[in-house]
């Protein structure tokens, strides 16, 4: 009875008793969720256009952020380092297409997935050799990202919202809007979606596979840079971030591999739910640190009921 009480009654009682704290938890979860959603978005774009499960997306985030900070440390002004980093991400996209994707055309999905693990390892080793393995501080001020914080007093309590988090949420929203506009309205966006629907049909109407792949990997690189800046501002830049990139996997599975909406909804849902679970159930009952597995178990349970994820395309199998 005591146990049932502490599982089903007490957490909700705590929530109602301290609504300002609940709001703070929700906000933290929302910010984390936006970041998960951004990483997952990079995955979805690549999966949609080439059916490659790109494991390297998480490491691209770290790599982009490291390049930006590394260039700044070498004395390049921040506003110049930004386009230079974009150039590096573009070169990376070209290199990946040339060295990895083109020779592996028509191989089974599993082989391509393993190849992206190879890219991940290569980027980790390469990045650590060039930029060193130690933790770096994101150049928040130099990029004119506000660092102050707002304080509110809802319900007579106390709520703290950091301006850089707010910038992150707004920035991510704008990025997603631009991306959706690009995918739905522009020529290249249509070509990307056509490739996602049917490779051969797209090829036969004159869409160049290799050009589109470079573009898609470059867009994934841009998303990675945006994520890297936001995340780096919160937690510093180092390869320890790659662990957080694994979080994008359950987000992806939960939302469905092909769905942009799924990535966003899944990211926000996992970000908020895992924070709530950690604060109200994990810490008092399970000894804390449940964030390391909650997202995976949640995604697993959802998948048991919907094997294609919440928004994924229905899986039709033929023999």
């Amino acid at each position, binding site marked *: 009875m005591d146990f049932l009480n502490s599982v089903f009654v007490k957490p909700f009682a705590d929530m109602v008793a301290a609504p300002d704290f609940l709001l703070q938890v929700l906000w933290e979860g929302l910010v984390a969720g936006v970041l998960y959603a951004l990483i997952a978005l990079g995955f979805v774009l690549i999966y949609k256009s080439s059916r490659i*499960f790109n494991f390297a997306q998480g490491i691209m985030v770290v790599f982009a952020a490291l390049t930006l900070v590394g260039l700044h440390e070498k004395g390049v002004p921040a506003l110049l380092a930004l386009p230079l980093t974009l150039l590096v991400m573009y070169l990376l996209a070209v290199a990946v297409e040339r*060295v*990895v994707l083109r*020779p*592996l055309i028509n*191989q*089974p*999905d*599993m*082989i391509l*997935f*393993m*190849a992206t*693990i*190879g*890219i*991940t*390892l*290569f*980027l*980790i*080793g*390469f990045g*650590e*050799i060039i930029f060193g*393995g130690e933790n770096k501080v994101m150049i928040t001020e130099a990029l004119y990202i506000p660092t102050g914080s707002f304080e509110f007093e809802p319900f007579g309590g106390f709520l703290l919202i950091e301006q850089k988090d707010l910038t992150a949420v707004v920035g991510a929203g704008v990025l997603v809007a631009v991306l959706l506009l690009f995918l739905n309205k522009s020529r290249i966006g249509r070509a990307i979606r056509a490739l996602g629907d049917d490779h051969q049909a797209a090829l036969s109407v004159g869409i160049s596979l290799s050009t589109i792949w470079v573009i898609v990997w470059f867009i994934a690189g841009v998303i990675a840079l945006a994520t890297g800046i936001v995340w780096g501002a919160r937690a510093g830049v180092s390869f320890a971030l790659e662990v957080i990139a*694994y979080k994008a*996997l*359950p987000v992806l*599975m939960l939302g469905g*591999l092909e769905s942009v909406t799924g990535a966003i909804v899944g990211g926000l849902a996992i970000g908020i739910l895992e924070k709530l679970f950690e604060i109200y159930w994990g810490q008092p009952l*399970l*000894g804390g*640190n*449940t964030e*390391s*597995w909650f997202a*995976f*178990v949640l*995604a*697993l349970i959802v*998948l*048991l009921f919907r*094997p*294609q*994820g919440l928004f994924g395309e229905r*899986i039709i*199998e*033929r*023999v």
Partner: protein
Amino acid sequence: MLYRTAGQFKTSYAADHALFPVRQDAWLLGVILLFAFVIFPLTASEFTFKALLTPVLVYSLAALGLNILTGYAGQLSLGTGAFMGVGAYACFKLITIFPEMNVLVAILASGFFSAAVGVAFGLPSLRIKGFYLAIATLAAQFFLVWLFEKWAWLCNYSSSGSIQVPTVEMFGTPVFGPNALAIVQYYFVLGVVALITIAAINITRGRIGRMWKAVRDMDIAAELVGINLMKAKLSAFAVSSYVVGVAGALFVFLWRGAAEPVAFDIALSFRVLFIAIIGGLGSVLGNFLGAILIVALPVILNTLPATFGIPISSAMVEHLNTMIVGALIIAILVIEPHGLARFWQIIREKLIMWPFPH
């Protein structure tokens, strides 16, 4: 020339299906076993045992377990490290609860615990397929490592949260713990690995192995020809997790000597996965080739620049190692998606035909 098959006639189907249809294969294996059982133990130093021979065997076994699941039954697993952890913790609890138990029995029995856990996390595979299934094994990976950290009973409430291997004897010789000789541990590991490898070869060649391969190639088609998917997939999870669990117990008890929960994190899962990929999915030989490569690479990188007089820091070696492994994976996938084992197969076929091209 060396592999000429002239004069080797098969007069029955049984002879044609034998383990070594070409006699030279058996001789080659004999030579390798002679090296493993006699020549290496006679010549190797303590360092070689600890840094090369035992790790190669342990990683080969772990990769063999993963290969059964991913290479033969086609179910992607990213949770190998956690299942190795289950084997190691089970073995630790077994020998501390029953100190009289024979160590060989303890090691082999610990595999059953990880097999049970493996089947539990394999259940979703009946409904979830392909990349979506990776989430089930990832959930196992992160959840189990968290459990190792939080459940103090597992490490007998030790203050550091890690398991320390006690000294345990078998027939009067210490096998576990700091007092055991490296050569004894090597022979123990070699024996277990050889035993399980023989079993694995025979399972994968037989009825169950063919069932797994059918499921891997297309599970709906396999179901239509009368294969029970539940039986096939869960048996793959069980056998695979058993082998991986035994490898985990060997990993801690006969090589590392101690282990923290972090030792079983996702990095270990990936290391085993690379061995399986580089070696070749769906091959037993490949695991050994891959393990040799992955274990030897950092050792070579450590010693090679020093012999040429180039100073190189150990951190640099680690980064270089990561980078080279990444590049190797890509290179091997591009050149030959079926891994090192396929290379050997090609060489062998060429040798059989030599000097004629066809």
